[in-house]
């Protein structure tokens, strides 16, 4: 436990939320990326977070890895697409834009909440540094 642990803990929260936002914006950017039917579709990327050393009192969050959505995607009949197979189908990613926007808002709000946590901790520590001043 160092002196000003709140900053390290909130900082890990900032990092995890930023990774989340990166993943969501990647998903949104590639929402119309078509692939041919013999390849897998663009898979939705979801990050997995876990508490750092849960119960040890160390505090903080860790990005443990990434999970990927279904590879089958949606088959769409587009015979004019250069990637279309013999039957005229291409694969589109199975990503719901509404769901991604919701996640983006949640990630942004969490990021702001962690920033507020840092601000409050700074105020508290500065007040503590004034203790005993005549």
């Amino acid at each position, binding site marked *: 436990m*160092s*002196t*000003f642990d709140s900053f390290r803990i909130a900082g890990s929260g900032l990092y995890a939320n930023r990774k989340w936002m990166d993943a969501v914006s990647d998903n949104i950017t590639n929402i119309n990326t078509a692939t041919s039917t013999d390849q897998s579709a663009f898979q939705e990327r979801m990050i997995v977070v876990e508490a750092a050393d849960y119960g040890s009192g160390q505090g903080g969050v860790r990005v443990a890895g990434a999970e990927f959505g279904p590879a089958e995607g949606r088959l769409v009949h587009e015979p004019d697409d250069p990637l279309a197979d013999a039957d005229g189908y291409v694969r589109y990613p199975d990503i719901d834009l509404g769901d991604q926007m919701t996640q983006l808002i949640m990630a942004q709000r969490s990021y702001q909440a962690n920033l507020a946590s840092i601000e409050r901790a700074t105020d508290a*520590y500065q007040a*503590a540094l004034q*203790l*005993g001043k005549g």
Partner: protein
Amino acid sequence: MTSPISGISSALSGIQGLGAASGLAGTTPAAPSSGTDFASVLTGAVDELNSTQATADSLAAQAATGDLDDVHDYMIASAEARLATDTVVTLKNSAVAAFTEIMRMNV
């Protein structure tokens, strides 16, 4: 660092000796109730000063290396050390002022 102040205890016994020798022999001096005479108050304050300063110093060393768990621990210890120093210095100054006053008496 406390050496200028810890010498006061020996000066105080000098003050008490002076009071006994300078013509108060005719009167029976009122026996001071134990533990509340000025010398014991002052030595108690000096002891408290030493312990609060030691606490504040060790917490300051922890603050320097970043091992301090609570900031307010150090701030409180530092304020206590400062107050203890002020107490001892005020007591010393009062003792010196009283001594000077006594020396100025015409007997």
